[in-house]
């Protein structure tokens, strides 16, 4: 790969994304104050000591956002990983196997996708407790339908190409066909899709937390922090805007990277990339 050929926008995205990951991983060392430490006044204005000021209970907003990065990104990452694993494995399998397996899975996915994902999540969350495990499971399963469709479509597109037929005629097994013929050609769109799914999971989780149905206090996550501090807005206190902005910046960064990966992908006839 030629590093100089990476466009500026992708660089920006990569740097910011890694910065977010760094902050999330090393939260306890990076954060100046504790997660639930009351250190200043309620909605204290930003100062040299408290860069983003205080929150609705007088806790350091910056520190909570740093811990929040951890919660938000970890849950989103696990949910998208779950979505990705189940969606792509089943999608590939459906494409390669065809027949009733493909029909059954595809119709089930159609059905799940006929309900808007937020509504489906709300229905499920009305009966099950909103702990972290449930959130990951619900978000992961809802999201896996999209990954399934993409993986299946990509695999079907590649699967009808002559080089796959040629390897079938040679007598290659399903494993070779999936891992050596299809997967290398499907990787770029899938990696880009992982980025998009991750953003979606971040936004989804934040929406749920904002609605009070996601991560429960006293744990901090960005959506929940918007909820905690939203009442300040009408008094002209912008504390809720910081976590909301953090979500936006993270999402834009990952989007920039995913966009670049998608553009970098050459079509199958055009040959290899990078």
């Amino acid at each position, binding site marked *: 790969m030629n590093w100089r050929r990476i466009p500026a926008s992708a660089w920006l995205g990569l740097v910011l994304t890694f910065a977010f990951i760094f902050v999330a991983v090393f939260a306890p060392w990076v954060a100046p104050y504790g997660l639930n430490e009351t250190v200043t006044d309620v909605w204290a204005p930003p100062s040299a000591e408290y860069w983003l000021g205080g929150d609705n209970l007088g806790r350091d907003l910056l520190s909570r956002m740093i811990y929040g990065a951890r919660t938000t990104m970890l849950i989103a990452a696990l949910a998208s990983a779950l979505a990705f694993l189940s969606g792509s494995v089943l999608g590939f399998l459906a494409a390669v196997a065809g027949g009733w397996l493909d029909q059954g899975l595809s119709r089930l996915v159609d*059905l799940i996708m006929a309900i808007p994902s937020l*509504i489906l999540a709300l229905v*499920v969350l*009305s009966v099950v407790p909103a702990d972290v495990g449930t959130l990951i499971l619900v978000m992961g399963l809802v999201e896996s339908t999209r990954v399934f469709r993409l993986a299946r479509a990509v695999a079907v597109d590649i699967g009808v190409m002559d080089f796959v037929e040629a390897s079938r005629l040679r007598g290659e097994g399903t494993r070779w066909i999936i891992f050596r013929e299809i997967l290398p050609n499907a990787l770029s769109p899938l990696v880009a899709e992982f980025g998009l799914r991750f953003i979606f999971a971040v936004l989804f989780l*934040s929406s749920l937390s904002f609605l009070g149905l996601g991560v429960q206090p006293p744990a901090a996550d960005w959506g929940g922090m918007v909820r905690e501090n939203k009442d300040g807005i009408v008094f002209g206190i912008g504390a809720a805007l910081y976590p909301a902005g953090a*979500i936006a910046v993270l999402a834009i960064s990952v*989007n920039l990277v995913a966009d670049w990966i998608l553009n970098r992908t050459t079509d199958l006839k055009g040959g290899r990339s990078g």
Partner: protein
Amino acid sequence: MGLLLRLVLQRIAMGLLLLLAVSVMIFAATQILPGDVAQAILGQSATPEALANKRAELGLDQPAVTRYFAWLGGMLQGDLGTALSNGQDIATSLGKRLGNTLFLAAVAAVIAVPLAILLGLVAVRYRGRWPDKLISAVTLASISLPEFFIGYVLIFFVGVQLQWLPSVSTVYDTMGFWERLEAVALPAITLTLVVLAHMMRMTRAAILNVMQSAYIETAELKGLRAFTIIRKHAFPNAIAPIVNVVMINLAYLVVGVVVVEVIFVYPGMGQYLVDHVSKRDVPVVQACGLIFAAVYIGLNMIADVVAIISNPRLRHPK
């Protein structure tokens, strides 16, 4: 004409079947943890007899299939059941809220649809040049923004600092149309911004797809004016994809309403749903979920029907 009608009816039947399947799923999803509705009403301290009585009263002692059909039958007759949390008739509470939600969504759609199509056309017209690049950069950014970010930024700057528009969308029955419009201005703008980028991006792709067809080149090589090319050759072929884009985005919009209503404390169906999810009021959640899903499925169905009707191959079979 027979073929066309058959395809349209088939698609509508498919939509109804899907809706039925969705109703099963919504009902099933609320049965994951069985039988605790009675407990939820009476609380942890309820005696076993009281629980049993309550279950019988609510019909919870019946098998799930029987309860599903009873629920579905009620739904079809407009009887949405009673809320567990306050014992009120759901249909009554929902009626006005549904109206509010549709009003908000309609206002947003009236702004967003023409704007998105216009911007999509501009992006196509100046493809690869700065207006297109600017539009696609803004699109990328706004796809990444959570609804509450847009909403609170608007409240903070337009509502609080500039005081141009009300930041809380209070509506009441006696309100006139213009007052009501002012009340929903900020949430409608928020919703517009949420769907605009998506809709524009998809419109751009749909128009580009048509504009790159060989028959547009043919028209150009006939020496036609750009306007004639668009009116006679591009537009008739672009209707179906654009309607499709619009419908899909209206479906997004209806869902986006949920969060936006909470932000602006707007008394619509979304807020009603969210409130009752946290109260674990299953009948309300089921009813709202089904209505949202029905709107969503209905819009997608309209998109497909328009696509069928506008396809010349189906309209004029061999």
